[in-house]
């Protein structure tokens, strides 16, 4: 590395988001809080994809009335669009299953809905 170790603030924000959501998924027992942790992790991944493609002093990659300047990369933005839609679909299915588990067992605790009890 000829220019030293860079201090990138956006990538540290992504590391904080993914780390906090990983702790939530590992340690919470309530089902709604688990679903919230997964949603925060999806947001962290989308932020990482967008900040990979930023150019210094850049404008949006659209040619209609474009101001002067270099354009940022368009391919990570296209991948982020797909990722957001997939996160919405997974969230809808997870919440439907949480409603069904609540109606079947009467509580939203993940320890009380194990089927095979020892």
């Amino acid at each position: 590395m000829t220019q030293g170790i860079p201090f990138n603030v956006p990538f540290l924000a992504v590391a904080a988001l993914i780390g906090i959501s990983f702790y939530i998924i590992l340690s919470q027992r309530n089902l709604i809080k688990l679903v919230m942790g997964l949603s925060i992790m999806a947001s962290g991944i989308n932020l990482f994809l967008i900040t990979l493609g930023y150019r210094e002093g850049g404008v949006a990659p659209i040619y209609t009335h474009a101001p002067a300047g270099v354009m940022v990369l368009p391919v990570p933005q296209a991948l982020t669009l797909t990722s957001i839609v997939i996160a919405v679909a997974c969230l809808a299915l997870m919440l439907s299953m949480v409603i069904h588990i609540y109606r079947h067992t009467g509580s939203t605790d993940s320890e009380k809905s194990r089927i095979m009890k020892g």
Partner: protein
Amino acid sequence: MMSKIVRTMASLLILFALIYGLYIIMHGHLTPGGGFQGGAVFASGIALLIVAFGSDNIHKTLKEHHLSILESSGGLIFIGLAFGGLAIVFFYNFLVGSPIFGHIPPSGPNPGDIWTAGVIPFMNIAVGLKVLAGLSAILLVMALATTVTEVEE
């Protein structure tokens, strides 16, 4: 079913929300936006209707199998357009240069022209129909299943 002020304001604002969503879908090849974003804006207008009027009243007019027909037709149009350029390769843009949506814009910054971009506006409409119908169906079904009814004694 909320109070009279909320119902009146919702039935006034729903017009602007739906028109804005359709505008974002249709101008996807000139300004930021496209099929997915416009479909999400449209579905949020339907969410405003469901919250203001109650899901039972909305279910009398808007049933799930109408939305299912819309969504399936959007998907079929998307695949049919992909097969249209099969003479060269699977997703080929076969309308660039032809009289329908076939102008080519000058290079560099320019004021936009709607008749450009080949097969992309039709794909935007197809994906917009699919996302709009899909998200509205999810919202309507989940709102119907979680309404609180009176407990019989």
